[in-house]
């Protein structure tokens, strides 16, 4: 099983040597507890693991597509550290694809067999038609299984109706038609979010390497960003694709689902940039990581920070 680390735009390069070299943050941050808990679980499960692969880029916002200079600089640094490279890309408009093409061209010219994670079918089409030196990886945004922590633990409970439980399994990947399509496009790896529920799918039966992100899963995302509107006048706020000042790098908002009688009352969500995330509790995370290899997980991608 391969271990990978998300370094975003290079801010987290220190993690490349050691998963747990995260600089300490304020104890007031709710994320500090999550990060510490996740790090302890990884240590218990895997011991002193050194990542073999680095993920750079982001999956959620095309405003965060890096400039070519900084992109190539981080790539070179990662290669010098002996890490394979996976470039994350978000859903994109045509303007976003225009920004990605020069990065793909540079990456393809390195002849390094780099991977590109696509979260947009148009990106896959472009990779297939124009950049066959790059290896496409299907991103987790294209796995559309419901993951709403307000209800998914209930829908997957042992006493939930069988039809509902079965509907919580990752959809599509076990269908031969979709498998053939992805293989025809050169997709050998598919990515999923860590799920609250146990998957009954036998991942080893799939003709793909299956990779999971942890500890954060994404819930929803969009093209109207709350924090990106911080520096706009009230009347100008929340327009789709508004140019921002990357305020997502500075702030996070925690939302806690309260005031209900549901067992999931108290569940926390983390809003960073245009995206909401969840984080399963330590027990779920530990069980998942302990069983991962035996269940056929081919790669685990550790994201020390909320991935934005």
């Amino acid at each position, binding site marked *: 099983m391969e271990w990978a680390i998300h370094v975003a735009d290079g801010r987290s390069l220190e993690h490349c040597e050691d998963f747990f070299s995260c600089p300490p943050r304020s104890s007031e941050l709710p994320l500090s507890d999550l990060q510490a808990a996740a790090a302890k679980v990884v240590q218990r499960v895997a011991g002193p693991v050194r990542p073999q692969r680095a993920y750079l880029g982001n999956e959620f916002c095309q405003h965060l597509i890096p400039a070519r200079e900084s992109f190539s600089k981080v790539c070179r640094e990662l290669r010098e550290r002996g890490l394979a490279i996976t470039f994350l890309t978000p859903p994109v408009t045509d303007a976003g694809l225009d920004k990605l093409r020069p990065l793909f061209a540079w990456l393809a010219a390195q002849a390094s067999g780099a991977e590109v994670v696509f979260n947009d079918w148009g990106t896959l089409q472009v990779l297939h038609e124009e950049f066959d030196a790059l290896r496409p990886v299907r991103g987790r*945004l294209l796995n559309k299984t419901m993951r709403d922590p307000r209800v998914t633990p209930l829908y997957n409970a042992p006493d939930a109706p069988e039809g509902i439980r079965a509907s919580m399994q990752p959809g599509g990947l076990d269908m031969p038609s979709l498998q053939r399509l992805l293989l025809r496009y050169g997709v050998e790896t598919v990515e999923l979010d860590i799920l609250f529920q146990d998957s009954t799918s036998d991942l080893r039966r799939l003709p793909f390497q299956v990779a999971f992100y942890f500890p954060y899963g994404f819930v929803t995302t969009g093209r109207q960003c709350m924090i990106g509107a911080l520096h706009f006048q009230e009347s100008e706020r929340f327009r*789709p694709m508004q140019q921002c000042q990357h305020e997502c790098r500075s702030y996070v908002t925690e939302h806690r689902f*309260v005031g209900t009688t549901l067992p999931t009352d108290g569940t926390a969500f983390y809003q960073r940039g245009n995206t909401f995330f969840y984080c399963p509790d330590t027990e779920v995370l530990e069980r998942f990581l302990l069983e991962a290899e035996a269940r056929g997980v081919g790669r685990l991608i550790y994201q020390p920070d909320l991935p934005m």
Partner: protein
Amino acid sequence: MKILAPLNSPAETEMLLANGAEELYCGLVPDEWVARYSGAIWLNRRSPAGGNLRTFSDLGRVVEQAHGRSVPVFVTLNAQTYTASQLPLVLDLARRYVEEARVDGLIVSDPALILELANQDLPCALHLSSIAASLNVAAVRFFQSLGVRRVILPRSLTLAQIERIAGEIGSQVELEVFILNDGCIFEEGFCLTTHHRSVGAFCVGLARMDSQSFKLSGAPWAPGEEEEINTLLQDFHRRIDGLTNYACSARPQTALPLAPCGLCAIPAFHRMGISAVKIVGREASSLRKLASLRLVRAVVEKTRNGAQEETIQAYAQALRESVAPCVPGEMCYYDAGATHKQKPSAGERGRVEIAAMANPELV
């Protein structure tokens, strides 16, 4: 450019056809699906209760009446995804929609389902739902290669982005756009939450959650910084409220919808060669559906009659009740007609609205 209208009852068919619907769409959730999956797992993008037909005979009646006026009917199978265990029932329903009820097209979003339907070789068109989030030309080309005839573009795209797609690939594939009712701060195609009544829509529920913002650096707040973030959060909740809560509301006197729209962009869509403009709201009341259709038809007719673009936009804006500013992110999808954002007076709006509703050409 056709006007596509929603329905959830055969009783609405004649009303919609008589008032200018040129295409119809609906959903059908049979009891068999509900027995297996309850109301928790939706067969399509609307709740089994309220947003859908229940029987094939109902669907057959809708299609028969529509075909009597040469109007096509499309049925939604646009859940975000289907599992392998769901697929046999979904494919069986698709076959029955087409062969038994004789619908003209299926509105789909899951690539796996599209591929399976292509293997079935059903005599119907496949329309790609906005749930598939086709945001660029290459994505449209990808789905076209899977056999999709029409692509419904997400309403988060700007007019310029739609124009680029239409310019580059609009001659090879039909394009459909949202024109009235409903909106969301999130991208539907990447929102993996439920709208089930037990918890409600995630976006709407945010305002009721306990929320607290933090600086990622862990540094202390600068003077006024935390208050600024809290104000932003309240404003965010207000926008979500505006986009969603007005989605199903209407003016009491006329039933004219108060929801977001793209009416001002109709002349631009006409010019781009967009195939259809879509009215949202399968679950809405019949009266609201009628008012929505008349509203869209009034603007489409002005466009077809060759009125000046600015005249059409001013007319469209005067028709609407402004519960929030007529700008993107609030009540406007596409930011067309920006020169007319001066809100008309109540008297002016009332005169135009009454004239429009009483116009014998519209009824």
